[in-house]
């Protein structure tokens, strides 16, 4: 299993042709208290950069983009009832959705953990 990161502060864990997607620790710290998460419908096909989910804090709503092309195969229903999980455990149990990759080649353009860390420090 490999973990990738995007400049939009999302992470992907890829197993076979399925990527689990969430937002990073840095993203949750910037958002403040998360109060609502809107997840994509299963079966929806998305292109890289399409709006996939929405994460809301009290005073802001932010879009979560599809990091790569693919089809939504699952959403983390736990987040709908317990949005606070995004603050507590963003890079693990508070994953947003899983997508079936349709263009695995896109992964190569993403960052690894070290690169992402350097990227965040540069902000």
């Amino acid at each position, binding site marked *: 299993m490999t973990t990738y990161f995007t400049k939009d502060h999302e992470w992907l864990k890829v197993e076979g042709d399925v990527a689990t997607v969430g937002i990073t620790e840095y993203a949750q710290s910037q958002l403040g*208290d998360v*109060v*609502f998460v809107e997840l994509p419908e299963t079966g929806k096909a998305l292109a890289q950069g399409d709006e996939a989910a929405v994460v*809301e804090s*009290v*005073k802001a709503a932010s879009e979560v983009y599809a990091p790569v092309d693919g089809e939504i195969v699952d959403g983390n229903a736990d987040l709908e009832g317990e*949005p*606070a999980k995004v603050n507590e455990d963003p890079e693990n149990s508070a994953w947003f959705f899983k997508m079936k990759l349709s263009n695995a080649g896109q992964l190569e353009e993403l960052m690894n953990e070290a690169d992402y860390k350097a990227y965040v420090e540069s902000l």
Partner: protein
Amino acid sequence: MSMNTQGRPTSAGEAAATAHKTFTGNKALDMEEPLIFEIGRTDICGVDLDEVEDFQPRLGKHERKSEIGLVGLSEPETMRHYVRLSRNNYAIDAGLYPLGSCTMKHNPRLNEKMARLPGFGDIHPLQPISTTAGAFELIDELARWLMETTGTSAVAMSPKAGAHGEQCGMMAIKKALEARGEPRSIVLVPESAHGTNPATAALLGYKVVAIPAREDGTVDVSAVQEKLDLYKGEVAALMLTNPNTCGLFEPQVVEIAKAIHDAGAYFYCDGANFNAIVGKARPGDLGIDAMHINLHKTFSTPHGGGGPGSGPVVLSDRLAPFAPLPFIRKNGSELEVIETRDQLVEGEDPFGRMTAFHGQMGMFVRALSYMLSHGSDGLKQASEDAVLNANYVRVGLQDLMTLPYGEKPCMHEVLFDDTFLDGTGVTTLDFAKAMIDEGYHPMTMYFPLVVHGAMLIEPTESESRASLDLFVATLRDLVMSAKSGETERFAGAPYHAPRRRLDETSAARKPILKWTPPAPAQVEPLVPAE
């Protein structure tokens, strides 16, 4: 001698200084008030109404079977409930209310009295037109004042508030483009705009393209031109607030208007800040095609805790034919009321209707009462005073607080950023909440979005010099306090308001939007069930 045998103490010194927790939770005049649902009863009524005898309904099968779930209070209880609630509110009548872009000015009570004349307050929008000649005369007269002050030749009176006015103006623009056979898809909005601008454009199906602000907080005509070239033939309109939300008059507004018009697009102006320039300049002369006027800002109709507002839209000649129904057509001194399409004559092509009836008549009366009171001289003086007051606050604070665009004159509101709080651990929010403890309503904060930790102060013309002096001194004291590390004055603020800081996170995570009866307490049955 005669003696005071009860020995009643009359000096304050003998009353102990230590506060104690009260039984009721009240603190003298500061009283806790339950919800009506916790104190009301279903069998109490504060209005005397006769019971209908021998009630024989003609409701078919539609009679209500269920209880409604309402409670009543007698008249004295109702009075007390709402009076107590009212005392938990800040109000312009009670203190300085420097909310930038909101124009919290004095609300004259003459206006209230006029709106309540039976000839205005007690007339029906659909009673015969022949019985409401005075109402149309008032609407027409207010329209004249709005056109004169803005330098335009038409006005749509019916929009119910600012955002509704924006919608009206943008619908007229859309219709005008369709009439030209050139539907377009893009609306340009500067980043500093009020949120209603992009929301309105999106509501009408337009794609919103942002225009960045210049270093000095204003819009550069070349930035507009760049977008017009990039989206050639696709830009329907520019929505620009002027004076803008940074408190600055757009110096290139005439050039911007020209660029917009040369590209075949329309210039929508958000009139939220009209209070700065009434009697000084006319937006029509500057080249706008449509501008809403918030009667509840510039022309003093009360905000009422969030409304009602009123948002008439003045229109250029190019948009006038597309003004919505209803409108008044003038034939000499004769006023003709046009409510339906069959009454239209050539050259009139309304895009539709914004609302039932004729608009916010109650607000029209108040606004006209305000305008008549001021007259042309008073309106101009009010704008000058509003601008002077804002600049007076600016110079009183600019050495301690930070102006994002440098020390230059502002219009009727002054914008600070939070740079001066760097390293203090105090945020804009904390600073605002500490103002509450000092007896002030905070300024508009975190808006406009183009400035970090924005604090937008609009004192209005209603403040005296003494009031401004105290306000400036208070803010200076707060800044000094923040800089000297007295963070607890801010972090926990407000300490003295009816409520401490409220938990907005849990309110949004698990919304409780209405009262529900508490679950009945579990009582052990006396006799165990078999």
